[in-house]
């Protein structure tokens, strides 16, 4: 496999995904939109893990295994967050996080 790309473009893709996810989390008013932003942030971190695993032979196994852990834990996080959102929707008939002030406790 040719390594003509280098490490930096992969890290830039990871940074772009991270920034898009952070902005998405900050700007979306729909609770599921915020969840999608979290998925983007986790994907950015995973791209960084796999890129370092490829370009740094000392971390080859570790990077891929951490990427697998991130994917599995993101699936679990999405399941719990969607359950919470659906529960909130059943109780309040809205998914707008600006109106979710009753959750302050």
């Amino acid at each position, binding site marked *: 496999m040719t390594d003509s790309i280098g490490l930096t473009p992969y890290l830039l893709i990871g*940074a772009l*995904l991270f920034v898009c996810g952070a902005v998405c989390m900050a700007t979306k008013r729909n609770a599921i939109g915020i969840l999608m932003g979290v998925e983007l942030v986790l994907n950015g971190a995973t791209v960084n893990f796999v890129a370092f695993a490829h370009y740094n032979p000392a971390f080859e196994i570790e990077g891929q295994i951490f990427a697998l852990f991130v994917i599995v834990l993101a699936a679990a996080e999405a399941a719990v967050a969607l359950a919470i959102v659906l529960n909130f929707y059943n109780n309040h008939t809205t998914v707008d996080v600006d109106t979710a002030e009753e959750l302050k406790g």
Partner: protein
Amino acid sequence: MDFLYPLAFWLFAALIAVSAIAMVVTQNIVRAATWLLFTLAGVAGIFFLLGADFVGATQLLVYVGGTLVLVVFGVMLTAQGPFINLKIGAGEWAIAAAVGLGFFSVLAYVLVGFEPKVPANVAVRQAPHKAEQPLAVGAAAGSLPLADNPETRSYHSLASAAVLGEALLGFEKTAPDSPVTGVRDIVTVGPGGTSSQVKIVKERTKMAYLLPFEIVSLHLLVVLIGAAYLARSKRRRGATS
């Protein structure tokens, strides 16, 4: 044929960038879910390009096939009437765009020109199934480091699913030279290559990723029960009371 690899990379990079930005910009939650699908598929393609076949396949199976279907079902169950298009003001857009551009500029400024330093005297693990000689002998004989050895280089460019599984289960040849955290201890093997240092490394390879693997499996069970409990139907209690 050397142009195929950069071509594929830039195609996937453009796909990821366009769909991620479009997902942030769009106001429609259904369209955002569709853009997220293309983003995740592009990231899987990047994984394949990086030689991480199993991680890419897992990304496609778990993320695109599982998590995204979950998100789409959540969208379908809640997207009614005004919740499909929840708009925010122009001032908030301006602030978000400024913060995002500034954040990305800082990251890009740091990343451009960045090259990781691999210390020359790191005792990297031996390649599995090829490591006939002990570590100290290789270091004493002055053989190439693992990254420069063409025979082991081919192994390093492709960690198959079997190697990942052996690392998870703690097989000795592929287990990381580190405790459970996975952060590798940098063990300097001197010119003499004393075997005591190598013995320390060998004693710490027992755990590998078996404990995190079990923790993740237990975590998935807890999440399964918790999600089913949170999202359960409450009509039965309302019917009886």
